[in-house]
């Protein structure tokens, strides 16, 4: 943390293509945007007015999208163009895909309207006392452009954004997830030739 009176929460995202021969190519390496949703979630926790179990405050899910927001600031609460179905993530993904509500700008919808990929807990690593890393892997069968290009009216639609979500801080009966970190990244045309590995580190 900084030598200031405040605790600055920052994050860093590295994206790598990993090919079948295990070779790795770093395609993106930069800071991210910690958004106000993290504050909302932590305020729920520290007031004791939200969920009474910490699982609900953990960052256990993500969304990937195709229409990145160039001007994203801390007020952003959703991806511009998230993948919106299990089919778009791929039926043979290496992680679970779930549907849930999403808290957007302080409001949670009453119908399940969003799709998230779940981050296996084994991919959550404590780096040091105040840092945690989330490793998100889109394997060769996951989020390939052929599964969503059609919906976006074209071919070769690229992935350009990713968001990290807190599970259900308000403790709703149906999960109401909230965006806590976001990053637009370099266009990546996802194909079955490689896996994409996102190494996302959050420092408190």
């Amino acid at each position: 943390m900084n030598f200031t009176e405040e605790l600055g929460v920052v994050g860093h995202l590295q994206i790598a293509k990993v090919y079948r021969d295990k070779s790795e190519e770093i395609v993106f390496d930069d800071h991210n945007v910690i958004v106000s949703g993290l504050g909302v979630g932590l305020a729920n926790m520290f007031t004791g007015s939200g969920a009474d179990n910490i699982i609900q405050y953990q960052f256990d899910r993500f969304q990937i999208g195709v229409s990145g927001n160039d001007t994203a600031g801390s007020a952003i609460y959703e991806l511009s163009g998230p993948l919106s179905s299990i089919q778009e993530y791929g039926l043979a993904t290496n992680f679970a895909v779930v549907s849930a509500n999403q808290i957007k700008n302080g409001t949670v919808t009453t119908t399940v309207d969003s799709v998230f990929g779940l981050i296996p807990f084994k991919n959550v690593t404590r780096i040091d006392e105040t840092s945690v890393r989330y490793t998100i892997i889109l394997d060769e069968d996951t989020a390939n452009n052929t599964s969503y290009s059609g919906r976006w009216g074209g071919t070769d639609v690229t992935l350009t954004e990713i968001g990290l979500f807190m599970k259900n801080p308000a403790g709703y009966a149906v999960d109401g997830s909230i965006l806590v970190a976001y990053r637009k990244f370099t266009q990546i045309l996802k194909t079955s030739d490689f896996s994409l590995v996102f190494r996302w580190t959050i420092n408190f």
Partner: protein
Amino acid sequence: MKIRGKVEVYSDYGTKDQKLVSEDDNLIVDGAGEIVVNMLTTTPSLSGIASASAILDTSNYTIQAMTFGKDEEGYKRHAHTDTWSGLDFSFSKGASGGTEAGPGTYKDLLFSGAMVFVSANTNPAGGVSSYFPSGSSYKIMPRAPVSTDKKLELNSNPIWAETYISANNYYASPVTWNNPGLPAFGSSVVNRGHNLNTLLHSSGAGMNPIAGTSYQSTDLLVGAYPRGVWSGGTSGGIFNDVSELLPRQDPVGIASATFVGNFNTVSSMDLLGHLGQVYQASGVVGSGGWHLEKHPNIQYSGIVVSGSADFSSTGEVAYSTVIGAGDLGFTNFYGGIYNIGLWALDIKESLKVGVPPYIWDPISNVRKYKLFSKKSFTKNLAHIQDKASGEKAGILNYKDLTLIWRLYF
């Protein structure tokens, strides 16, 4: 995103005479980040283990305590040391400090309360009957807070823990040192960095008596909060020097009073000086649910956590409590209040003792805490000064202080 906080201190809070005594930013320390990362990296698989699932309870990762203290040097001065001189003098006159004759009293002691001596502090009096911890003999300066702090001060050992000083009774009133032996304390109470609350239960704090005496008197050396109303409170007195302690009659000091501690009346503070959240506030649960506004005095029961109606947009969480007049007046004898700390439960350390839930017990509190944020003041929150003639003496004129610590996420 940044997590920040500020501290507000009021007198006469909620009345037409409400006065803002202090308002300033705090320092969020690294422990805050550690608490959040603990939460994020605790395996959710514990939910499937009946004996361990309580580890996942949110309360194990949130703010649970507040502490108060002063500068490092202050733990070697004021009533910590002057009371030692007073007891020493008392023992030299044949007092035993033995069996209690009644609540808050000790057999044969010449004065059974916290003592400060003008002669030992050069300039301690803020008028005829007020005590200024910041005398001219040394300048109180709390340690500059840094983000790596894990407690309020690095060293809060009393002088008897440092024999090179205690052998000469260096700081104390210049009386003959009879050296009946040094008091000893349980290791858990040593060097906590903030004020302790050993008057709550002396033996519970692991305190051993000065040789030939009873430990009941040594709790006065540590203080730093008076007994509750059920025990009749605890006395404190300002004296010119020990000669004013007279066998078999009341001392003729400058001023004395009996202080009744609110913390120990409602059992909201443990032996180690952690003021806890409200756990068992009587009468607050009704058929209509719990509403803070219906319980205007609940801050007297410990720390009350609240969020405004729009906390989800402001990210504001408030921790409020009242430092009672008796607690303020008495702890001023021990150097006043220059540091305060906000502590979260340290689940990793607490698990070494046992699994949650950790029931609040002020005498044998199993909860372990991690410093979340701290605030140091340049002005003593327990400051008092004699007013114009016709008003009560300074030490009798304390008012409750309301402390509101706001965090913004």
